[in-house]
């Protein structure tokens, strides 16, 4: 299993590094933008707009996690599907389910670590100039966006690993519907009540890729 995870790391390390740089750049931009806003409008106006009008400080990060998720799925699994290289992996003397879970677990953990670190840096940075209630409001508003990144990774992997192109389109449509539930424009904190459903869906979606793998192994064309 360690060898599989190492193989995944070798395959994706450059892209993971690129993601790290992109997140770092965007977080820096958010801090600079927030600081400039404070300078231009004054802290009192900004606080009052946040309290009264639900202004978001982390809005710029909205679409980066889902983009990161989908791109990691492509970087990790598209090469496997080219020339059907995945067949070699599936013929190794390891249970195919365990092996796929290991590969997915690697990508999921990498994204989870990246998102957690980004979220922690953002919240720590905001806590310097804002009360913890404002920090928490921004945490709650960004939570479905980060969860969206995990969803796009799992559902993107499911779509990439699917051997039939027509089916890939169907999978992508289903994935779009599921991810769209996290992007209905709502107040900060509105998704707190959706959290249990989100976690349950995330747990279920983790195993979708195994179905595509089974179809691939069975030689479905």
């Amino acid at each position, binding site marked *: 299993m360690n060898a599989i995870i190492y193989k995944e790391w070798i395959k994706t390390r450059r892209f993971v590094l690129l993601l790290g740089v992109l997140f770092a750049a965007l977080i820096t931009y958010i801090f600079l933008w927030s600081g400039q806003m404070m300078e231009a409008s004054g*802290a*009192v*106006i900004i*606080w*009052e707009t*946040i*309290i*009264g009008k*639900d202004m978001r400080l982390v809005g710029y990060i909205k679409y980066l996690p889902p983009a990161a998720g989908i791109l990691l799925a492509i970087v990790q699994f598209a090469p496997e599907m080219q020339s059907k290289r995945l067949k070699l992996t599936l013929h190794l003397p390891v249970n*195919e*389910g365990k092996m796929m879970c290991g590969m997915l677990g690697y990508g999921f953990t990498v994204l989870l670590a990246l998102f957690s670190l980004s979220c922690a840096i953002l919240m720590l940075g905001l806590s*310097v*100039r*804002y*009360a913890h*209630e*404002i920090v*928490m*409001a921004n945490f*709650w508003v960004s939570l479905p966006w980060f969860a969206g990144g995990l969803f796009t990774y799992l559902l993107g992997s499911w779509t990439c690993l699917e051997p*039939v192109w027509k*089916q890939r389109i*169907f999978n992508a*449509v*289903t994935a779009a*519907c*599921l991810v*769209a*539930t996290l992007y*209905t424009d*709502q*107040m*900060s*904190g*509105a*998704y*707190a*009540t*959706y959290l249990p*459903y989100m976690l349950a*869906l995330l747990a*279920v*979606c983790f*195993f*979708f890729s*195994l*179905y595509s*793998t*089974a*179809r691939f*192994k*069975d030689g*479905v064309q």
Partner: protein
Amino acid sequence: MKYKNIIRSCIIAATTLALLWAIPSLVSTATYSSQNHPFVYFSSVVKQFCFRKTIGKQTQRYDAAGQEYTESQFDSIMPMMYYRQLALNGLMPDSINGAAVTPQIIRSNSFIFRYRPSEMSQPHIGLYVLLESMSGRANLQSPGDAFRFKDKIEFIDILANTVDREKSELYEKELNKRGYTFPTQWAFGDFSTQKSFDEGYFALDASGQFFHMKQVSGKPFIRNTKVGDSISIAHFSMLNVSNKRFYGFVFDNQGYMYILESPSYKLRKLDLPPLSLHGDDVLIMGNMFYWTVTVTTEEGKKYFALNNETLQKVDEYLLDNKTNRWDKVSSWLFPAYITLSDNSSRFVQPKVHFTALTAFALNIAIALIFAIFARKKVNVAFHAVYILVTGVAGLIAVLITPDFK
């Protein structure tokens, strides 16, 4: 693979759930049609409900008795609504119903209030801003601090992002002295600075007592309104009315509505039937003679005219909702569908809505067609039953999730 069938079932279930939300959302947007109810206002001159309805370029103006009016006649019978137009045309009467009127008098006695059910169920950041109630300026000024008010009261200096101990202790001491019990259940206020005075906040404490808190000359002003002794308070909406007759509207748990009079904290009940606080919208357009109250329910709009002094009902009118395109389409397409948010709450939470049994006709038809034409005979019965229950969404989920041997 061992759990292939279980995973396939999970994919079908997740796809069905997503489509039970996505397809009705798209169809609902595509079939949106307005109820096109007229604008309704109670006339203080003809003393009945008057209506203005626009269809295309044609605007009809009429009263409840069916009498039609021209635009200028309509202005004249609705001076509380069109006083600016009347003043502009030099047609403003000196008195109405024996009371002297000027545009200033009408303006200071008029208000518009709106209640939406989502007010009772929405996330709150947990921070508030307390303005100086009478700053002496035309517009109020921001205090430079915010406060948290859940388990204790704590003022935060915005520039330093630190707790202002002195101010916090001053307010905490005063709250304790007045018998306030933490934690606060909820607090409502309006910290907009575009007004000439501020009444601070009204808060329900842990023991169900209703407190008024504002800042007067830099000092805390805290009073127990004692309203909590007479009714079980569900909600309060503050309204800064120019004549300072009342602080806002109190709703009790039975759905009755009251005004909280200023400065006595006396409750005055509105002569309205109990509202569904989680479903009904309320719009009140008040003037010095009558209040026109519009209660929007799922069935239609109920209009009530209340006497401004007594708050007793003088007239009522009902306009039923017409069956709109979405109602017609959904009652044939979806016996049930899912929404993630609706008017009753601003939280995201999946809710299942049931429409009509007629939609099962479509479910039966597509389940039968599936049973007849399904290529693979394995699990056809199970899938047909699944489609019968879940309808179009289930059919699409089954069709796009491939089965294989």
